[in-house]
């Protein structure tokens, strides 16, 4: 090393870092090209928005203040959470999108071409994570905004008026904004969870089954638990039930887990799935 000018190594390191950043950017662009050139992806993106808004609107339309005694305010209805119910349905499409980004490569065999073009597996998985989470956030934003708009239009007709103690839904309201942003992030994390699971199991049907079971079957099983203490504990630790806590805007003290800690639990699930999937991806033969 003697005689080497001291500036050279750091310049070389910077150049390498710049090249790696460029390589990752190119990998992200290629992943986006892959995704947008398969028609099924567009149907899934439309499905995320449509399912979220439709299911949210239907839920909002189905609930009225008629059964509230003595006054509508007595119901303590969380109208924000009610309007965002559709996220519960839209997450299925997000999960499929996230899983397919990886599993379809194994299903069609394109994984080998993908890895000869981008042999650094961490980079390839990162690029996929960037693309699916960005799409989940974007479609999630559209779905959440659409749901809140529908709720704002439908709810007053069902008795949830400002006079009755239910101000119109507005993002200017702190908890409402938190629920909206949180729901978007929720969908982003679901996409990453599904991607990680798909990298682990390498099969479309398998990956989708595992993720949907975690999201939908787990809560059903929890509801069958007779011990109230255990039921609550499992709700705290279920990916969907904990993550959905971020939508609550009323009676926060009675929730099994707070809004942000709940989303944090889901983030742990997503991180664990990505880590396990990433290690498998790196170590196993393609």
């Amino acid at each position, binding site marked *: 090393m003697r005689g080497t000018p001291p500036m050279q190594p750091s310049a070389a390191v910077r150049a390498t870092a710049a090249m790696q950043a460029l390589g990752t950017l190119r990998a992200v662009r290629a992943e986006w*090209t892959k995704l947008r050139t398969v028609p099924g992806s567009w149907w899934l993106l439309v499905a995320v928005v449509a399912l979220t808004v439709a299911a949210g609107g239907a839920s909002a339309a189905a609930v009225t203040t008629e059964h509230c005694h003595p006054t509508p305010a007595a119901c303590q209805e969380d109208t924000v959470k009610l309007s965002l119910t559709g996220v519960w349905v839209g997450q299925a499409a997000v999960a499929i999108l996230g899983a397919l980004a990886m599993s379809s490569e194994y299903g069609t065999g394109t994984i080998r*071409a993908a890895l000869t073009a981008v042999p*650094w597996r961490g980079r390839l998985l990162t690029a996929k994570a960037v693309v699916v989470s960005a799409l989940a956030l974007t479609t999630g934003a559209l779905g959440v905004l659409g749901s809140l708009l529908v709720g704002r239009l439908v709810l007053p007709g069902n008795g949830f008026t400002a006079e009755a103690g239910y101000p119109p839904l507005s993002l200017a309201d702190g908890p409402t904004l938190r629920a909206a942003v949180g729901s978007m992030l929720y969908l982003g994390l679901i996409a990453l969870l599904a991607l990680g699971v798909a990298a682990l199991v390498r099969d479309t049907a398998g990956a989708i089954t595992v993720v949907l079971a975690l999201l939908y079957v787990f809560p059903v099983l929890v509801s069958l638990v007779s011990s109230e203490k255990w039921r609550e504990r499992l709700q705290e630790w279920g990916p969907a039930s904990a993550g959905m806590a971020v939508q609550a805007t009323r009676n926060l003290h009675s929730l099994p887990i707070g809004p942000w800690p709940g989303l944090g639990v889901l983030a742990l699930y997503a991180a664990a799935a990505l880590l396990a999937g990433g290690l498998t991806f790196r170590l196993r033969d393609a």
Partner: protein
Amino acid sequence: MEATIEVQGLRKQFGQTVAVDDLSFTVIPGQVTGFVGPNGAGKSTTMRVLLGLDSADAGRALIGGRAYSALRRPLTQVGALLDAAAVHPSRRGRDHLLWLAHTHGLPTRRVDELLETVGLGSAGRRRAGGYSLGMRQRLGIAAALLGDPPVLLFDEPVNGLDPEGIRWIRGFLRALAREGRAVLVSSHLMSELEDSADHLVVIGRGRLVADTPVAELLAAASGDRVALRTSDRTRAMAVLAREGATVAANGKESLSVTGLPAERITALLAAGGVPFSEVSAHRATLEEAYMELTRDAVEFQATDTQASEPRAAASQASESQASEFRAATGDGDMR
């Protein structure tokens, strides 16, 4: 970068099965190297290790002296066609090339250029699910050539193609080698490599059987046998044996002569006034040469119960595929 492929002491095991066992060979630029062996011999595994898809249990597989994962912008250094069927059926052929191009920042122009080169042109706008096998092979070759790499690997590129497609690929491979690229082409059928390979790496059960120029292999397998038809066997044998040839009778009117070139034989017979109707130098096909090689490999493993079966198949094939080159014939054929 030097356009070479080097495999040194490569070993790869899947569970209890040894797919590649202490395999070493080198592929040099400017020629087509055939990579031959029966199905399951370890050809695809070797290629997958070369491309960094599978990890080696021992040994090295290098391209231009480097491991695949150490290559900068790998598509500009190595192009590979592993499995032509590996395309997303609902993605258009052109888009398949496009995402590959985007991983390396290559322009869209390059994609369209290659679609034309491989003869897909407008078909690139169609979904790959509707492609014939031949079209998929062409798409796969275009993908391999995207980065204009000096090293190319093709795994069974003519498998399942029609004669027209086979001819096209053979010509294409030769042209790529003429441009100075190192081209490694695998096949489980030696006959597929006839007329296209310059050098052969033959493997069986994961081990190297032969690493030889095609011309040498053919010369060795052909020997210098000359087949002769004559109505006067005894005199012909006497005349030729006197000149040092080894003569064997293998039919009522036919002889097999070794040790003398065909021209000399005709001259001797004519001078001695021996009647003869046909003199032909035996020229082995690549398939025969291959069978001879693998026969030795099979004999080496004679304890194996399966050994007798391939041997029977080998002799059958060399009989049916033997081709003879007419070096010289009687005056009737001299024009």
